[in-house]
């Protein structure tokens, strides 16, 4: 196994022992990035990575991220580095500042390898709508299956062994769903736990900074680095940052876990259920109390339309600044309105424009009561029920997706009435702002499937503990690298 295939923790140990240098890791990562066949990247940062890694000569024993290669979803602002949001309207946009999370990683001397592709402006779930085209799933060399989105490039990058860590963003499930399809740990914290300064806003009441790792422990290390109040982000929390590591191997005896009955009932794939049930049995063996809980079918069916209306409405107003004037390409026009109209018509893909209209229509005064405000009220009922369950249970545990990564031919970004509750359930974590983690729990026909846990707000520490217990039980730690070796 190459050192680049290790987890952050293992890589750190090798760096400290000087078995490998940051420059060697960066060079290997760049080599692999250049050989990428999954369309994971907007920009490979070869010069920058080599420049940073070359200066790292004395290992920092207490800094896990020293010399660690990482990826950045291309909706995080990076100073003097192209940041496109995978959208034509930002195809040559160069920010003048760094997102707080990027700044924190650079200050920790982590080494940026690439900016990664996404569904345009993070508004999609398939990894097919970015301006550079489809991103593929590294588990499927035939390129028939999607990796999921919107953080498709970051998922593909970590899954293909190019880095042990990549930043993503999660507004509905944009990290936690692709994590399931790509055999990775995907984590988002409590809303407000990590600063969002410099992340292109999509729907700020739902947006979270999130990320991919190869192990639960790495996800806990990353939160230790990235969490905390940021004066640039008024929604970031003042709450003290916990020690997420020390007790990660503690017993889970007596922990109460709720499994959502309606979600399980909506899953047709027996193999997914068998794999999921195996992990449940292990949790019980380890002393957890696991019970089936009914959520409320009507509320669960309401999740998807509620998400669509709220997220589209917020997105419409947030992206009004993309006018082709302050930045973005100019396509001419006789009036300033024509300049804007040309830029926005050519600059946004069809899906984005449809979603903006849905959002704008929902916000019109005569429609607000029936659409936007009703969705916000439904959100409150959904969140109330979620929190009610979490008053009685420590965690909610469900399959992260109803199936392995679907084939492109079976997936669509168009709205339809034919969807499964289990396909849109992770949004509970965004509605309620709860910490949530996906981790691999098994393989079906060599394609991974994940389980997802949600915990109470700001109780990430407990969430990592239970997730680590499941990971120890499945033995699927660093799954994606083992796939590469095989």
């Amino acid at each position, binding site marked *: 196994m190459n050192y680049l295939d290790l987890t952050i923790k293992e890589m750190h140990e090798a760096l400290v022992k000087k078995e490998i240098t940051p420059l060697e890791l960066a060079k290997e990562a760049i080599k692999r990035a250049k050989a990428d066949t999954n369309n994971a990247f907007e920009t490979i940062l070869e010069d920058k990575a080599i420049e940073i890694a070359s200066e790292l000569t004395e290992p920092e024993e207490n800094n896990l991220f020293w010399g660690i290669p990482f990826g950045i979803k291309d909706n995080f602002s990076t100073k003097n580095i192209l940041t496109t949001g995978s959208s034509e309207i930002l195809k040559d946009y*160069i920010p003048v500042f760094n997102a707080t999370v990027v700044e924190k990683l650079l200050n920790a001397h982590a080494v940026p390898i690439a900016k990664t592709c996404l569904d345009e402006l993070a508004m999609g779930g398939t990894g097919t709508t970015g301006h550079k085209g489809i991103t593929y799933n590294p588990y499927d060399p035939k390129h028939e299956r999607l990796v999921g989105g919107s953080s498709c490039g970051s998922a593909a990058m970590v899954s293909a062994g190019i880095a042990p860590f990549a930043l993503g963003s999660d507004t509905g499930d944009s990290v936690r769903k692709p994590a399931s399809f790509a055999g990775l740990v995907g984590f988002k914290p409590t809303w407000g736990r990590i600063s969002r300064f410099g992340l292109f806003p999509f729907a700020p009441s739902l947006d979270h900074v999130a990320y991919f790792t190869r192990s639960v422990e790495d996800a806990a290390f990353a939160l230790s680095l990235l969490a905390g109040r940021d004066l640039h982000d008024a929604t970031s929390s003042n709450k003290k940052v916990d020690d997420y590591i020390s007790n990660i191997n503690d017993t889970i005896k007596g922990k109460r876990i709720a499994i959502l009955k309606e979600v399980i009932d909506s899953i047709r794939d027996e193999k997914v259920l068998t794999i999921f049930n195996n992990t449940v049995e292990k949790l019980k063996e380890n002393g957890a109390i696991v019970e089936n809980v009914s959520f409320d079918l009507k509320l669960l069916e*309401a999740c998807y339309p509620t998400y669509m209306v709220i997220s589209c409405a917020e997105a419409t107003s947030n992206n009004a600044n993309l006018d082709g004037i302050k930045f973005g390409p100019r396509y001419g026009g006789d009036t300033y309105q024509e300049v804007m109209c040309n830029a926005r018509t050519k600059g946004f893909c069809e899906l984005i424009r*449809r979603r903006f209209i849905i959002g704008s229509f929902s916000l019109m005064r005569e429609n607000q009561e029936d*659409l936007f405000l009703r969705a916000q009220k439904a959100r409150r009922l959904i969140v109330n029920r979620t929190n009610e369950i979490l008053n009685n249970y420590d965690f909610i545990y469900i399959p992260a997706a109803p199936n392995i990564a679907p084939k492109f031919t079976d997936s669509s970004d168009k709205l339809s009435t034919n969807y499964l509750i289990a396909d849109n359930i992770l949004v509970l974590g965004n509605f309620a702002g709860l910490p949530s983690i996906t981790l691999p729990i098994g393989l079906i026909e060599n394609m991974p499937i994940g389980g997802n846990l949600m915990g109470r707000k700001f109780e990430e520490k407990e969430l990592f503990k239970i997730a680590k217990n499941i990971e120890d039980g499945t033995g699927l730690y660093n799954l994606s690298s083992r796939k590469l070796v095989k």
Partner: protein
Amino acid sequence: MKAITKEVLKDAASRLMFDMSDEQYDTLEKEFEIIIKQMKLIGEIPDVDNVEPMTFPFDVTTDFLREDEVTEPLTKSDALKNAKDVLDGQIKLPKVVG
């Protein structure tokens, strides 16, 4: 609520400063049918109209105000760096008044 017609959707698009093809409006019309139907179902959920709309996942109170110190957060050259047409330190647009 406004009835959905192609004209209504075209008007919404023009307010959003973009256009779409006829085929794309057709797709959108179908999507609206679905959304409106689903939102009607949501309207039938008991109590849905008896709760306050939720704008954030939970209440966050920020009582912190930074010191009112003069700084230069963005230089003029940085502010203009990404604009395509700049003249005399300003972004150039087609003439508004002849």
